[in-house]
């Protein structure tokens, strides 16, 4: 009766599987489990969690991590019945959106006075407090440059030179926040009219508008493209792994975005959430951020992570976040009309 006994065993294995489904981790008896939504990079999660838990032995961080767009969409979709306690490490533009949707529990962390003003929401109490800034800059593959005898660009204006035809990638602003802040930065630096004219010219050199803010520098690092315009961190970390890539701060200045911390309204772990918000603005936390970000929120913590250009913070443009939010739909519609519709693959 191999047959029926096999079936029986298979059925029992199945039942066991079904029984285990639905039971997650055994609950930690005394520790508060804090559900933290984040878009921090994968390799940052462990050090951040450990550092926080050393100082807060009664709290355990449970991460829900994904890309900025996914986490933002998930938080908004869960609005009716929030599952997150805290956000730690998500684009401030997303968090500002949550603020207008009345999803946040305003709280000014103890020690927030040490944070540079531009890294705070400006409300009282604060709806969010920043941690670091990431920049949208130029990644240039030196090996491919040498091979094709192409010089490195020094400015945004250089990118429209004919020698870069079809060799630049940038994030699609309709699918990536980094893409939008890049476009918005150009419009703010050059003014709207000149900005669109610049993008018209740049369009000739763009090989692809990618659906991700971190992919352009990764592609440049791997030589898939000569130049990537996008998120800085990935370019730097690829360089540490040995990629022949240079991070270039264009001389006109660059667009940036903050990552911030905020407490979700309705959290059942408010006390623990506040502890995290407090810890996130400490010098210790900021020194941790400074290992991977070129610019951090704490006044006096100098960030000089490996492989970053030293002048990055000075090049940050005066970014009008309110203008960016208000004009987003209009700019994206215009951008889509100009560049997205007629983008058949170039031969």
């Amino acid at each position, binding site marked *: 009766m191999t047959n029926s006994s096999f079936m029986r065993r298979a059925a029992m294995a199945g039942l066991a599987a079904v029984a285990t489904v*639905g039971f*997650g981790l055994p609950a930690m008896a005394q520790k508060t489990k804090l559900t933290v939504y984040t878009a921090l990079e994968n390799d940052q999660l462990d050090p951040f969690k450990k550092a926080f838990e050393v100082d807060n032995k009664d709290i355990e961080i449970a991460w829900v*991590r994904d890309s900025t767009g*996914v986490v933002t969409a998930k938080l908004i979709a869960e609005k009716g019945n929030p599952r997150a306690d805290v956000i730690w490490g998500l684009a401030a533009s997303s968090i500002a959106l949550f603020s207008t949707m009345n999803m946040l529990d305003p709280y000014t962390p103890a020690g927030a006075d040490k944070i540079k003003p531009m890294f705070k929401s400006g409300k009282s109490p604060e709806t969010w407090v920043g941690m670091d800034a990431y920049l949208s800059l130029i990644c240039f593959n030196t090996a491919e440059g040498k091979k094709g005898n192409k010089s490195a660009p020094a400015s945004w204006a250089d990118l429209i030179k004919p020698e870069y035809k079809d060799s630049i990638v940038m994030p699609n602003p309709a699918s990536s926040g980094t893409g939008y802040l890049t476009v918005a930065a150009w419009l703010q630096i050059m003014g709207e009219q000149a900005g669109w004219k610049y993008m018209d010219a740049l369009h000739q050199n763009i090989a692809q508008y990618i659906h991700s803010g*971190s992919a352009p520098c990764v592609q440049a690092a*791997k030589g898939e493209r000569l130049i990537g315009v996008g998120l800085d961190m990935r370019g730097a970390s690829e360089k540490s792994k*040995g990629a022949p890539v240079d991070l270039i701060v264009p001389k006109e200045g660059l667009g940036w975005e903050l990552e911030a911390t905020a407490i979700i309204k309705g959290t059942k772990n408010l006390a623990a959430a506040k502890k995290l918000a407090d810890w996130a603005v400490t010098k210790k936390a900021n020194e941790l951020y400074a290992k991977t970000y070129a610019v951090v929120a704490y006044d006096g913590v100098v960030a000089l992570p490996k492989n970053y250009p030293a002048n990055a913070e000075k090049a940050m443009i005066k970014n009008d976040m309110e203008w960016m939010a208000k004009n987003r739909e209009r700019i994206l519609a215009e951008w889509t009309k100009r560049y997205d*519709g007629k983008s058949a693959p170039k*031969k």
Partner: protein
Amino acid sequence: MTVAAAPPHATRLRATRVGLSLDDLVMRLGVVALAVVLLVIVGLPLWSLLAKGFEDRDGQFVGLANFVAYFSTPALFDSALNSIAVALVATLIVVPLAFIYAYALTRAVLPLRWLFQGISLIPVFAPSLLPGIALIYLFGNQGFFKGVLGGPIYGFDGIAIAQVFYCFPHATLILVTALATADARLYEAAEVLGASRLRTFFTVTLPGAKYGLISAALVVFTLVITDFGIPKVIGGNFNVLATDVYKQVIGQQNFSMGAVVGLVLLAPAALAFVVDRLVQRKQVALLTARAVPLIPRPQLGRDALLTGFCTLVAFGILAILGTAIWGSLIKYWPYNLSLTLDNYDFAKFDANGWDSYFNSLQMAVGAAVVGTALMFVGAWLNEKTRGFHVMRGVVQFLAFLPMAVPGLVLGLGYIFFFNAPNNPLNFLYATMAILVVNTVAHFYTVGHLTATTALKQIDPEFESVSASLKVPVWRTFARVTTPICLPAVLDIAIYLFVNAMTTVSSVIFLYAPDTKLASVAAVNIEEAGTTAAAAALCIVIVITSAAVKALHVLADRFLLGRLQAWRRR
């Protein structure tokens, strides 16, 4: 006849509803229960997102304003045309390939048949990231064969190649089921009547597989239309509807517009549904009670030709897999190609390390067990219930829907529906169970179609005979139908298992801190730029699914042999 045999209380019922036996009643109740389950796991979650297509961003009802806004953008038209073009091309390539391949597997004498069958399934073992990575290594700007395509891989060509790879097993699975059950007597008759082989093929083989062929074409077409993973990685600037949904929902958090595109995407599904109904009407049972199973006899020319064909296809599949394996073992593409095993130390790349892999295993087993039971019993109820056309139509439609819906629409719908504070089922949210339910729902269509195809080939005479022998219908189900269909049942279980191992687009919204899946981890690792580690995790997933499939083959050979013995003469 049935009525006379029914127990007394059923006879009482007959007084109110003439001709409804106990069997009929039970079956109808079953169909209603199935409809309710499908409504909860497919219909309502989808509606809770798609309804937003009629609301503005603040949740105010705006009628068709979003549709008007969307249809007046020229970009929509381009995306729709692009979607249809790439889906048509992929379908026209995949279905003939899969048909010949399935034909070779079922109707020819192939050396190493089991190996060819196994290889044909490899693409479905792999997360869609894998062909993306492999194609870039092969044809990308740094690839070994760059320039071979006469243009960049990013765009139409890349999407088409990756989709052909990705959809091939789906079509093959359906077509193997369609071709596996054949009545040898028909072929004998054809031979005796002096019909040429070609004529036999067109008058016996093709009509018998018609339902499978159309199902396969519909499945491939809608899979390509709704998939956003491949166009996202390798689509370049080639916009399709599925990436439009991505742009609206993920890029701009505009659920209303995302819902509008999602609804537009349902059009192919509606079409598929109508076509299916039309074909179904004409489908006749192939495996009658007196059928004699067809055992292919050696035929040198045909066998050699088909072996050559299968070898070629298998080589193409293995080339892509091999590239990914090699890619998982190198240090830094393309500048340091020395070999290393470091990329398999997942704790270095993802906080969850190997945990996510074990979560995936648990989820996949759960989905295979729960899903197979639901799909097979469900398909049986829907096929064998007499009359009751409206409700059966509802079930059929709900079973078709998931195929037409991009995963991210279903995933967000699950948040809206299952996370609602007033939903009694919201205890499921953020558990492993919701991932299981979501996966079963997401892959419902192909499982349902496979079960239906298998069931359709069984002569209804079995049921009539049982009924006249006073055997209740569920006993016929347990003692006759299920054993006959056991190969198809196991196919469905394997299909669910492997898809649960690779699925991303829907579950990415639903995992909780302790239920992160390997497939999601692979996407995150790739996004972080560590392509080699992402390839490594993909390979681990492929190996797992391949191992499970190997067990299945063994089970098929040694354990099911007895149950299927009747097929032999």
